[in-house]
């Protein structure tokens, strides 16, 4: 029997699911190997769980999602965090540093709505609540990595994902280093690869959207930002409190735990 695949959305922008749809040319091959049992954005034929392979996009930000996540985990052979929101909270994790009163102002009658639709006004990665078998980083993760993860799931192996820094891919593309040659504050040295050094290859500093690499030396880079790129302390905090400020490897430079 084909393993059942579910693509589930929590608090996120659907970009990761769009990236899943971007494996379109392999999608038909994929349906030969797995049964797409749940994928609300793409189909109205959605079956009840449990599912074997679960891809979860988005972070956890409501009690309803937390309940759903635990249920999915219980039934899943493989729970894969799809993208930064699920792995680290992504950009919306910045809200965790905003006092709840401030974010409540977004809704005039917040409490009234709250009684029916609850929100933690905080986001947290899946791993804060359940065991996650594989994390596909990136905002969004590259479709190749998604395919590798699915192949790995079918073969019963751990796929090769690039946990080394963006600089490796950047150098293999023979880019002139923006940090060293131009003194620009590039997050490449502390950011996990996988994007193919998308930003530096396009003349732009890495903003860190793949989160910390396996051995991120955030304090050294922060020091380089201050010394070589002339960044203020506030700017440095903003750099690290961005896609993955909640991650332990960045939390000090992101202005401390919250």
């Amino acid at each position: 029997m084909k393993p059942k695949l579910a693509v589930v959305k929590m608090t996120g922008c659907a970009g990761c699911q769009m990236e899943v749809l971007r494996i379109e040319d392999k999608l038909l091959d994929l349906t030969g190997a797995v049964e797409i049992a749940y994928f609300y954005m793409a189909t109205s034929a959605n079956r009840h769980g449990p599912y074997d392979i679960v891809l979860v996009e988005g972070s956890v930000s409501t009690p309803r999602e937390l309940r759903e996540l635990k249920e999915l985990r219980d039934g899943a052979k493989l729970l894969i965090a799809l993208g930064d929101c699920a792995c680290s909270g992504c950009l919306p994790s910045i809200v965790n540093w905003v006092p709840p009163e401030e974010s409540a102002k977004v809704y005039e009658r917040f409490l009234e709505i709250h009684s029916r639709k609850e929100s933690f006004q905080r986001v947290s990665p899946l791993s804060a609540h359940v065991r996650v078998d594989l994390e596909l980083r990136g905002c969004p993760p590259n479709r190749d990595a998604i395919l590798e993860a699915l192949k790995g799931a079918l073969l019963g192996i751990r796929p090769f994902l690039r946990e080394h820094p963006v600089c490796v891919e950047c150098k293999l593309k023979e880019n002139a280093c923006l940090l060293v040659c131009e003194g620009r504050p590039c997050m490449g040295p502390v950011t996990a690869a996988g994007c193919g050094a998308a930003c530096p290859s396009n003349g732009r500093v890495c903003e860190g959207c793949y989160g910390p690499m396996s051995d991120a030396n955030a304090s050294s880079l922060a020091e380089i930002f201050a010394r070589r790129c002339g960044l203020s302390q506030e700017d440095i905090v903003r750099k690290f409190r961005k896609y993955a400020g909640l991650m332990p490897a960045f939390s000090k430079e992101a202005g401390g735990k919250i």
Partner: protein
Amino acid sequence: MRLENPYLAEECVIKGSRRQTPDVYTYAISYPRGSRRLRTPFMPGQFIMISVLGIGEAPFSFSAWDDEKAIFETTIRTVGNVTSAIMRRGEGQRIWVRGPYGRGWPMEEARGKDILIVAGGIGMAPLRPVIEMVARNRRSYGGLEILYGAKTPEDLLFADEFDSWRSIPGAELLLTVDSVPRGTKWDHGVGVVTTLFDKIRTEPNDSIVMMCGPEIMMKFAVKGLLAMGFRPEDIYLSLERRMECGVAQCGHCQIGPKFVCKDGPVFPYSELRGLPDLLA
């Protein structure tokens, strides 16, 4: 001249597997008779690269072989991608093999000398052919003393062969485990392998030590043996390092100027002393 691609492996067939411990199996693998490279004589302590196409490749030692039947055995602990893919492949299925590579145990140097074997856990696998070679060529070697330790009695490899090892003339087998689960019968030592050291009868002069196990175990064992008077050049260790090529190109297994794949995996301690990233 057409150069041979050293990374091309030969197709071999799994003939059978025996369970050693809950996560270790010994596989009998037959190689093609007309094999290009696999027919080169194997030496105990050498290794081969085994791969499952589409999954990857990894280094493993021989634990036995039979040139007549064109079969060898390898004893593998299931720990990751390649090893679990091998485990999932049943009898009659294909795997890909290249080698043998590296410098094995000093069987020549050991001729006429006493042999002391010190093994920990899966480290017994590359030492098993030494025992067999001594048994087959009994008169070429002196005494044979085997010290073997594992986590629990269940984790000892080749337990079904212990009696035949003991029956090798002049051979001694001393066992120890870190702990014994309740209800298990066990009349041997309890403690790390070095706790067996005061029972060693092998004299430091005119003997060769062959050791394989976790690096931390080897560190303390070497210390103990040196203190007992064994000479650094007589203590041989088999090292494990990350290997991607097996042919001294990928660089992963380097220890200072040494390539474990080419200069080892077996080294006399005298060659290793003072090198970086060793004996954790």
